């Protein structure tokens, strides 16, 4: 019996879980949800006296704190969480492949589907702000980084709790959207704290009350969040009782 290389195992897990994640209902629902920032971006671009500052705030709060984490939650928590719930995890778990390959494949599957569903509406919204290319590129970069970090967090959540969507929504709206917006120490423990710091740093918009690490530190921290959550998920997967 030939062995399966870890990267081959990642690709196989990614492919099978991606097919499970992508359903018509989910895609239609999320696409409709994605129209909201597009509409708001268009309105802000035409109504605001300072569309750059208003736009950066809108991208930070509406996009990076709500749209991106909610979409990531729906797909990432389902990626392994649904397989555990419905009993299909056994078909990946009982294979001669490393646990981290399964984790990485599941993360990659949720990221693959979350990226276009968030980056496209966020980019269109940034274009409709009509304030130049800086905010467009800043939005794309920040959205991509936020997606990879959120997918890591919610992948782990899917294996930790039952009803991860409910727990995840509570986390997003209470911690990421509210607490991290007003308490700087909390922002240091939130994806939105670092993603807001990147977009404000790149656009030069200054929100006094915001947690404001450098862009380099923010990018590094988002990558650390991803690596840590992949690690914890792998450990969890190794210790889990598989149905």
């Amino acid at each position, binding site marked *: *019996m030939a062995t399966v290389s870890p990267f081959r195992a990642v690709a*196989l897990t990614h492919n*099978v879980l991606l097919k499970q994640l992508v359903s018509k209902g989910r895609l239609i629902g999320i696409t409709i949800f994605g129209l909201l920032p597009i509409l708001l971006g268009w309105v802000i671009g035409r109504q605001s006296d300072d569309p750059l500052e208003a736009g950066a705030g809108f991208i930070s709060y509406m996009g990076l704190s709500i749209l991106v984490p909610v979409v990531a939650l729906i797909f990432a928590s389902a990626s392994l969480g649904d397989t555990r719930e419905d009993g*299909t995890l056994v078909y*990946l778990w*009982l*294979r001669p*492949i490393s646990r981290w390959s399964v984790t990485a494949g599941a993360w990659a599957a949720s990221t693959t589907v979350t990226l276009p569903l968030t980056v496209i509406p966020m980019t269109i919204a940034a274009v409709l702000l009509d304030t130049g290319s800086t905010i467009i590129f800043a939005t794309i970069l920040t959205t991509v980084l936020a997606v990879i970090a959120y997918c890591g967090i919610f992948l782990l959540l899917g294996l930790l709790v039952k009803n991860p969507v409910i727990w995840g929504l509570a986390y997003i709206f209470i911690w990421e959207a509210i607490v991290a917006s007003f308490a700087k120490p909390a922002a240091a423990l939130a994806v939105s704290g670092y993603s807001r710091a990147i977009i404000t740093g790149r656009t030069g918009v200054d929100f006094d009350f915001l947690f404001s690490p450098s862009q380099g530190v923010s990018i590094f921290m988002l990558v650390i969040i991803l690596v840590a959550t992949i690690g914890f998920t792998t450990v969890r997967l190794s210790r889990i009782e598989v149905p």
Partner: protein
Amino acid sequence: MSPQPPPPPQSQAVNHPVNMIEVSRASKSFGNVVAVSDVSFQLNAGVTALLGPNGAGKSTLFRMLCGLTTPTAGTVKVLGRDARQDTPVRGKIGLSPQQDALFDRLTAYEFVEIAAKTHGVENPKTATNYALTLVDLDTETEKNVGSFSKGMRQRVKLAAALVNDPEILILDEPLSGLDPVQRNRMIELFHNLGSQGKCVLISSHILDEVTRIGSEVLVIAQGRLAASGDYRSLRTLMEDQPHVIQINTNGARELGAALLRKEIIDGVTIEDETLNITTTKIDLLGRSIASIARELDVSLIEVTPMDDDLESVFRYLIEGR
């Protein structure tokens, strides 16, 4: 096509210095509920049936064998290894789980091919086609397994369990949902695999099924190993016990008297037109009751065995009554 074992190219001749499956004083509890209690057995090549009623602990035992759950006490080894910790040994196990769960958005071919690829099978396409053919599934169908009937889904699980040509096959209720023809074919396939040197462990809660699955039987009830060994000795043990049969007839008195006179039954009670008889000569009763009824010119409306359900079997095996 007659069922045959999977193609041999991927097989490696393996000498087993240890038992292929070794369970030593294994227990598993979920909180206060004891699912498996102090179970020990060893298995090698051949087909073994694991018989037990629903909730007896069969699936938990299978999950422990595959490393899907850890025993609370004792040890469980497959090919001398713990499947939970040892990655390579997982490549030598084929599991068909009891739950009716599949990746519903894949076709049968895709599902089995993914199993082949994640097992590192050298020629996954050939192996996939072969495994699907073995279980009589169309390799070309474009339908997702989500739209399959229960029997077809069962066969998809079996194909996925067979595709890596495993040394150990663990099949949890693999015949449920299959029609009689398919059942016969699968049982023949299991026996072929057993004679090829594979260790095939199959669970069932249907006594009649077990008689055809394996000569070696493990009986589990209430989480404990109630009996093990050759099926014939188990059956002989059971046949020594009187059977209770209920017969509805329009000539209860005459029929009861005739059966007693011919010493076919040991005891009888009559309620209206119902005979409740006890007998240790169940085969003789089966052969002769119709002709006796004909001689007496009475009609047999219904003949119902009252104690051949599994609960009775287990009650006897565990409690000796």
